[in-house]
């Protein structure tokens, strides 16, 4: 039973890892393009914006299992097969690209327009603004978005079992649910919970670490204040000893 779970773990990580990578590579430019082409954007192009927006919306509204079946022809031309882990990566990645793109769009929109203006005033072009302002300034949010995408992909990957890709979700469905091996199902779910928690934790940690240098006023000074208060509190007993003599 253990080799089965180990193989499933590896399959899940393999599928999710590759599809996340492809989703980030494809979704990041798409999300940025959604912001740039929007009304008032640096590359304002209302038609392009509407087209990209609609494509993203349609892709996002397809249930994953249908997307997977619909993409079979495309998958075959790319991987040469419609079965197995490699074949699952294609629909996973394509399903995740618009998902991540929307998250990127939201993150990039949050960047202060004044920063864009400052770089324009320095003589920077649009590419410079994307590279030096939009991406670095929204990096904490982008990492949080990538984390969300990974977690969503782990969920999608459970359905990849239908094309024989295996993975933890597939074990839970086929062995646990369909063969009534409740114990195995719970173990799989527990492993998934642990994996997802770890990914979320790592993502949060990275995002916060990056964010802290920006908004240092968040955690740093508050801690310092606390320490000062403690220091101020320390000599208090001494003062307290004298004070009662005066106050009554």
């Amino acid at each position, binding site marked *: 039973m253990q080799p089965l779970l180990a193989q499933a773990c590896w399959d899940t990580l393999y599928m999710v890892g590759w599809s996340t990578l492809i989703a980030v590579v494809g979704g990041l430019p798409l999300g940025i393009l959604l912001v740039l082409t929007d009304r008032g954007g*640096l*590359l*304002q192009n209302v038609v392009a914006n509407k087209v990209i927006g609609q494509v993203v919306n349609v892709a996002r509204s397809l249930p994953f299992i249908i997307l997977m079946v619909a993409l079979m022809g495309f998958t075959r031309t790319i991987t040469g097969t419609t079965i197995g882990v490699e074949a699952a990566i294609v629909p996973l990645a394509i399903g995740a690209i618009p998902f991540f793109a929307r998250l990127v769009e939201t993150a990039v929109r949050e960047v*202060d327009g*004044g*920063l864009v*203006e*400052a*770089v*324009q*005033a*320095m*003589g*920077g*072009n*649009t590419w*410079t603004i994307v590279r*030096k*302002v939009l991406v*670095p*300034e929204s*990096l904490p949010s982008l990492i949080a978005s990538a984390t969300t995408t990974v977690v969503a992909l782990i969920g999608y990957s459970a359905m990849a079992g239908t094309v024989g890709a295996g993975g933890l979700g597939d074990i839970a469905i086929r062995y646990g649910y369909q063969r009534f091996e409740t114990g195995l199902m719970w173990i799989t779910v527990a492993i998934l919970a642990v994996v997802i928690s770890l990914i979320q934790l790592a993502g949060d940690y990275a995002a916060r670490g*990056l964010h802290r*240098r*920006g*908004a*240092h*006023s968040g955690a*740093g000074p508050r801690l310092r204040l606390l320490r000062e208060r403690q220091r101020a509190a320390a000599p208090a007993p001494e003062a307290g000893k004298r004070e009662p003599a005066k106050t009554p």
Partner: protein
Amino acid sequence: MITTTGLTKVYRSRGREVTALDGVDLHVREGEVFGVIGQSGAGKSSLIRCVNLLERPTAGTVTVAGQDLTALAGPGPRAGRELRTARSRIGMVFQHFNLLSSRTVQDNVELPLEILGKSGAERSRKALELLDLVGLADQAGAYPAQLSGGQKQRVGIARALAGDPKVLLSDEATSALDPETTRSILKLLRDLNRQLGLTVLLITHEMDVVKSVCDSAALMERGRIVESGTVGELLADPGSELAAALFPVTGAVSGDDRTVVDVTFQGEAATRPVISQLSRTYNIDISILGAAIDTVGGLQVGRMRIELPGRYEDNVVPIGFLREQGLQIDVLGREDVALAREGAVK
């Protein structure tokens, strides 16, 4: 150094048109600090943003350092290479600093140099030199969020100077700062103006800013320049709203038993104790009703409202004395007195 002619900016949104700039002619001389003052909504921000074409003017031209920027702009909304090169030679400082929070102070100052394609060693040398110039050499490794407002603006100024600009645009650079920090930032701007021969165009809604650093000023109202000139020229104009706002003096007007006179000081005459000389020479008692005197650009300028006993006719000689000293004298309320008399007769 900066010249705009017939600069017009009309914003269109949902069929409505808002004229932010209505034929602005501005001339900023090389090496001076020029202040544009006006209330919010007067078009100051549109004006300064049109100077480096962050905002495309609807009509009119902008010339900076002999280069017609409006001609470089091209038809589309995107800035072409030539315009971007021209912009890199114009520094700009913002009200909200606009520093990248993901970069350290030094990296923020290096950003314009990166855009100019300078090498790493050159960038860091120049950045440290500039940070030293604005007095922040010890904060090079800090992130903007760790700095105070005044320090952030110093970084903003260092960054604006990275491309060795001849012109610095300051968009309400001190409006988000407390009065003391405002003074230190203005002093820095003044020093840079002197040391580097930097031409500064600043916009502000605070009279104090104009008073403490500007050589010249212009007053904007509803998209137009209402008044403009050097501080001295403005002062010399008795009807100048800007001079009245810069050097406000109050007090009653002349009557039957007193003559109220506005004395405008500027240049050399301001350094002599004219009032006490007048008092001693003619043995008259002088009351000072109000005064506003300041050192602008190293020279004392200002206005004083004084009261001489007796009617205007009795004071012709002392007033002549003041005029001889090279002071500008405006006798207040003579017309008013005459009008009041007419009214009384009726």
